């Protein structure tokens, strides 16, 4: 990202690419939640809104009449509308486009991938071997989901760099440089077009073949629908998970008491993973206002872009007791890291499985590790938050 004018008043000039936000957004959100629960900004075309209260986030996520999913990324300049069903769909088109995908992501199907995910994690741990230090993000977290999604798509797991480059251009660089985002999407489409051709000749047990065989209203999906959904699955299923895995490992690297407790009692893993998802929620979405609506006293004007922050909702103390404390045995945790309502993350079972497997395998191999003194973890910018580089020292 290019340098941007620093933010002075977050209530009327917020910028989720500002270095303060990247470094530690939680204090900013807590302050806004108290003094101005819906912040605004003119840095983004037609104005942008950012709600920090759980109740407002719930309203926006569940109200497609006023808040449309046709734009799901807040950008400086709006791109032409992009067709990536179901995430960019509103009712009534949304439901059938989502329903046809559900069976491929149900718990039963995802359970079949666990062995492959474990094998991927173990081979990455083998590669770290007995080196005393590593980059927990680049050497581990970032490598896992690209390989799993490549496996699901039936393409080579060596495509990781290519996939990561597309995602960076669409989600980060593309916020201020529309040509970068459009170029990456064209490359993705060309890649997937070729895969669709190949699979039509030789079907396999993979998502591309699944979409070729899927039906909508009794008819096969159009090619733009297939390509749009494939683009979505790749973008949605990669840096969200690596951010989730990275943040979990970062927490354990910086909180030795939680690390020791989890190593001693792996039965805590399920509540710990849900708590990491709550406290370090990776994904912030967006909506476009299509009809005026007032929330927490703030009018949302049509055309405005809404930053829909599930991460901020998850830190709202009116919904979560001790919201800023990470409690790895938190028993009551209805977090919204995977969103709320009709667009609830379709990949949540896959994401939860990968995060659990990745943390479990890491702790089995490296029960004792910490952030390398004098070096700093850096965080990704924008709407998917996770460690970009994480210098770790491993004790043996």
């Amino acid at each position: 990202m290019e340098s941007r004018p620093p933010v002075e008043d977050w209530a009327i000039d917020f910028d989720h690419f500002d270095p303060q936000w990247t470094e530690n957004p939680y204090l900013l959100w807590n302050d806004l939640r108290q003094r101005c629960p819906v912040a605004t900004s003119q840095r983004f075309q037609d104005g942008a809104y950012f709600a920090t209260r759980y109740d407002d986030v719930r309203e926006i996520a569940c109200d497609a009449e006023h808040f449309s999913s046709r734009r799901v990324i807040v950008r400086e300049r709006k791109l032409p509308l992009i067709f990536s069903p179901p995430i960019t769909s509103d009712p009534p088109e949304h439901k059938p486009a989502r329903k046809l995908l559900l069976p491929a992501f149900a718990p039963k199907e995802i359970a079949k991938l666990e062995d492959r995910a474990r094998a991927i994690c173990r081979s990455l741990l083998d590669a770290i071997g007995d080196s005393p230090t590593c980059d927990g993000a680049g050497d581990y977290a970032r490598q896992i989901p690209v390989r799993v999604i490549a496996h699901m798509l039936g393409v080579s797991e060596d495509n990781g760099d290519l996939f990561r480059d597309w995602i960076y251009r669409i989600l980060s660089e593309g916020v201020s440089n529309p040509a970068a985002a459009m170029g990456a999407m064209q490359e993705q489409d060309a890649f997937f077009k070729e895969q669709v051709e190949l699979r039509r000749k030789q079907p396999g047990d993979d998502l591309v073949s699944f979409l070729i065989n899927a039906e909508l209203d009794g008819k096969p999906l159009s090619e733009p629908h297939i390509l749009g959904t494939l683009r979505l699955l790749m973008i949605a299923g990669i840096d969200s998970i690596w951010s989730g895995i990275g943040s979990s490992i970062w927490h354990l690297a910086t909180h030795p008491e939680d690390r020791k407790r989890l190593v001693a009692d792996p039965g805590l893993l399920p509540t710990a993973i849900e708590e990491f998802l709550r406290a370090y929620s990776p994904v912030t979405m967006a909506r476009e206002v299509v009809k005026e609506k007032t929330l927490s006293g703030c009018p949302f004007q049509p055309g405005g872009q809404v930053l829909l922050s599930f991460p901020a909702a998850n830190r709202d103390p009116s919904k979560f007791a001790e919201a800023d404390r990470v409690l790895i045995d938190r028993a009551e945790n209805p977090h919204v890291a995977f969103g709320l309502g009709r667009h609830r993350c379709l990949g949540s079972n896959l994401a939860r499985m990968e995060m659990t497997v990745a943390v479990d395998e890491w702790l089995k191999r490296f029960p004792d590790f910490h952030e390398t003194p004098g070096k700093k973890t850096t965080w990704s910018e924008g709407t998917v938050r996770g460690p970009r580089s994480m210098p770790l020292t491993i004790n043996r």
Partner: protein
Amino acid sequence: MRKVMRVAIATDRCQGHNRCCLVAPELFEADDEGNAHVHGDGIVPAGLEAKARLAVANCPEQAVRLTSG
């Protein structure tokens, strides 16, 4: 006599987050689309009341309902 506790899922609210199935697999299961259903008639066996309450508390969509009487 012990009051009978029952769980039910409001299918119009359930979005398949699957939290209920994970905290109380004895009471809920996911179907082929990932949406949750109660096992059998939804009567909570003695000893599982706490798990039933946990399922209620962890559902982000407020789709798990408890009744007793």
